[in-house]
C-alpha cells in the first residue's frame, strides 16, 4: 500500500468521524446564559441579536473575568463604562434572580485588534483572560458553546490573531457551531473530532436562532 492510498484512507476516516460528530444531536444546556466575545470582534453583536430573535434573555459582557462570571446573573451589578467595558442584562430576573449561576456561556470567536484596543486588551491578555474564564466554567460545570460566524475571510492564515482565538476556545468547548464558510478548511471539524466535541455547521447566522433555542430551552 503506497503513501497516497494510506493518506486517502486517513482522509476518508477523518471525514467520516467528523460527519458522525457533526450529525450528533444538538446538546441541551439551559439558562441563564452569558454571551461574550473571544477576540472582541463585532460577531458578538450578531450573537446577541440571534438571542433576541430567539426571544431568549441573556447577560452580555465583552470582557468577563472569572470574578464577573462567578457573580452570575446581573454581573454583580456592573455597568457599562466609557473605558470600553460593556455589561448588559436582559435575563428574566423573575426566573433567574440576580446572582444565579450561569448554566451556559457562549463565545463568539473573532479577533479584532480594533475591538481589543477599545477594551484595552492585547492578544496575549485576551488569551490569558479566556483561559481563566474557561477554567472556571469547567470547575462550575458551565456549558461552553463556541460559535464562529465571521466566515472565511475573517479566519485569516495560520498563526493569525483569529486562529489564536480559535485555539483558545474551540478545543475546550462543549459544543461548536460554525458557518460553513468559517470551516471551509475543516479546521473546526478536526478540532471537534480530536476532542470529541459535537459540531454543527450552519449556512448563515440565521441558522443559529433555532440552535440556541434547542440548546438553551
Amino acid at each position: 500500500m503506497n503513501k497516497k492510498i494510506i493518506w486517502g484512507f486517513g482522509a476518508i476516516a477523518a471525514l467520516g468521524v467528523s460527519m458522525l460528530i457533526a450529525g450528533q444531536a444538538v446538546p441541551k444546556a439551559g439558562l441563564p446564559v452569558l454571551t461574550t466575545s473571544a477576540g472582541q470582534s463585532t460577531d458578538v453583536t450578531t450573537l446577541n441579536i440571534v438571542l433576541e430573535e430567539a426571544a431568549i434573555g441573556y447577560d452580555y459582557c465583552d470582557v468577563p473575568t472569572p470574578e464577573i462570571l462567578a457573580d452570575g446573573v446581573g454581573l454583580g451589578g456592573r455597568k457599562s463604562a466609557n473605558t470600553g467595558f460593556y455589561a448588559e442584562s436582559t435575563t428574566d430576573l423573575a426566573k433567574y434572580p440576580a446572582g444565579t449561576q450561569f448554566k451556559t456561556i457562549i463565545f463568539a470567536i473573532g479577533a479584532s485588534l480594533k475591538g481589543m484596543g477599545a477594551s484595552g486588551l492585547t492578544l496575549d491578555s485576551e488569551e490569558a483572560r479566556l483561559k481563566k474564564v474557561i477554567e472556571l466554567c469547567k470547575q462550575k460545570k458551565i456549558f461552553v458553546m463556541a460559535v464562529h460566524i465571521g466566515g472565511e475571510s475573517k479566519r485569516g492564515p495560520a498563526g493569525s490573531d483569529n486562529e489564536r482565538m480559535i485555539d483558545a476556545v474551540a478545543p475546550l468547548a462543549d459544543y461548536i457551531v460554525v458557518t460553513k464558510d468559517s470551516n471551509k478548511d475543516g479546521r473546526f471539524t478536526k478540532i471537534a473530532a480530536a476532542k470529541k466535541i459535537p459540531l454543527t455547521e450552519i449556512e448563515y447566522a440565521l441558522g443559529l436562532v433555532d440552535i440556541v433555542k434547542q440548546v438553551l430551552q
Partner: protein
Amino acid sequence: MNAKRLIAMAGTLVLAVLLAGHLSTAGGSGTSDAFDAVIAGEGCTSILVGKDASTDGSVMATHTCDCGTCDWTWRHVPAADHKPGSTRKIYHVSQYKTWPPSEGLKWDVYKKDFAGLEIPQVPHTYAYHHAMFGYMNEKQVAIGESTIGCQRKMQNPTPAAKLDLTMLTLLGIERAATAREAIQVMGSLAEKYGYGFHDDGEMLAVADPKEAWIFEICPVGPLWTPESGKPGAVWCAQRVPDDHVSVCPNESRIGEINLDNKDFFMASPNVVSLAVEMGFYDPQSGKPFNWKKAYSPVNGSAASTNGRIQRLWRFFDIVAPSQKLKPETPNMDLPFSVKPDAKVSVQDVMAMTRDRSYGTPFDPVLGIRGGPFKNPNYYRQTRVIDHGLAEYSTITQSRAGLPDPIGGIVWIAFGSQDTSCYMPLYAGMTEVPKSFMVGDHWTFSRDSVRWAFDYTDFHVQVVYSEAIKDVQAAQAKYETELVARIPEIDQQALALYKKKPAEAAKFLTGFGINNATTVTNAWWKLGDDLLVKYNRLYLYNAEKRGMVRGQPATPEWWKKAARAFDILMEPDKK
C-alpha cells in the same frame, strides 16, 4: 499658604479645568444617542458644493480620509470591454486593513479576501482613479465619504453580506456615467448581494458635472440571507440643491424624505418598512418618517458635547455666517444644506478642509491648549475638520462645459491638510504618479509621496506657530499659483483633445505627474529647511549663516503659566 501661591493655584486650577474640558469651550464626551445606535464620531468629513454654489460652476465633493493607520496608496484602473457572460469578482475590502510591505501593497494583495461571489460583468467599465474608495472616473462621476454608523441591530458583519463600502464605490464608479446612475448601481447591488461585513452606516457624496447627492446606506441586520427575498441593504439619497452646500461629519444628514420628488430623492424599496419592522419608526405616531432619526440618530449639539460634534455647526458657520446658526442647536435640527453667503471656490474648499475652528468656542489653541507655539495638535478633545489624522484628502471637481477627461479633477493632499499641498489629477490621466502608489505608516520611504508631507509635518510640530508660516508660503507658491494656472492647462488640453483625445490624455498625464513630482520634491526640501531653520529651538538663517538666540520667543503668557504651575506643585513648607 501665601497670597501669591493662592493666586497661582487658582489660576492653574482654571487652566487645568480648561484643559480637562469641563468648560463649554472644549472636550467632553462623545455623542451618545438613542439606546442602540452605533455612531462613528471620529472618522472622515465630506463637503459637497452644488454647481450654482461654486465660483466656477463646478460640482465639488470632498473626503478627508481621517484614519491614522490606513492605507494611502492610489491606483489608476483603465477602461475595459468585457465579453458577454464574463463575471466580476467581489472582494471583501476593509477600509482599515493593511499588509506589511513584505507581503505586498494593499491594491496588489486585497484579492486574497475573495468574498466568494462573482456577479455578471457589464459590457464596458470606465477608467477611474481610486485609493480607499473610487474617487473619479472618466465620466466625471466623483465620490467622497464619511462613516455615519447605524442602529446596532442593523449591523451585519456576517459573510452573508458580500459587499463592503469600498467595493461598492469601485463598482459604482466603474459602471456609472452619472451620479444618479452610480447611486442606482451601488444601491441595487447592495440590495441584491447584501451590504455590511466590514462596514455599517455610511455616507457617500456622489457628484457629476450637474448634481451632488448625499447617498446613505446601512446594513439590515445579521440575520439577512439572500434567499429571504428581502433587500440586503437599506439606502436613501438626497440631492443637494444646485445653489447649496452641505457636509457630512460622521452624522447622517438625510431627514424627512419625499420619494415623489424624484429629482431630489431616491431610496431602496424597504426604506420605511424596515424601520417599522425593526421598531425604529411607528407610522401610527403621526410623525413623518425621518431617515436619520430612524437609522442613525445622534443626540447633542456642538455645545452640549463640548465640541465633540462641532464640525456640522462649524461648517455652516464658515459658509453661511449670516444664518447665525447656534452651536447649541441639536445637530439633528441643523439644516441638510445651506445657500452659502458667497459662492465658494476650490481654494475656499481647500481652506474648509484645513479648518481648525480657530476663533470659535472650540478653538484648540485657546488658552494654554496649544502650548507656547499654538500647536492645534496638542489638544484633540475638540473634533475639528482638520484633525491631523488624514491619510489624504480629496476635493473632486466635476466641471460642465469641458470634455469629461479634462472637466474632472481630483485634488489630493497627503497627510494633515494644514501642512500639505493639494495636487490635481485630471480624470483623463492614464496613470498616477508612482510615488502615489507606494508606502505605509510603519516604514519610512523616500519613494512614497506621503512621507514627504509627513516629513514636513513632523518638523512643523515643534514650533508650529512659526513653521506653519513657512508651509503657507510654500502652499501659496505650489498650490495657489497652480489653481490659477488650471484654466490655462484646461485650454492646452482642450486644443489637443479637439485634434486627438489620446494626445490630451498624454498631456494631462504628463502634467499631473510632473506637478506631483515638483511638489513632492519641494516638500522634502521644505522639511529639510525647517529642520535647519528651527534647529534646537533657535532661529538659524541659512543665507546669512547666522543664528538668533531667544528666537522663536517663548511668549510671556506661557512663562507665567509655567511659573503658576511650579508654585502649585511646590511641596507645602512647614
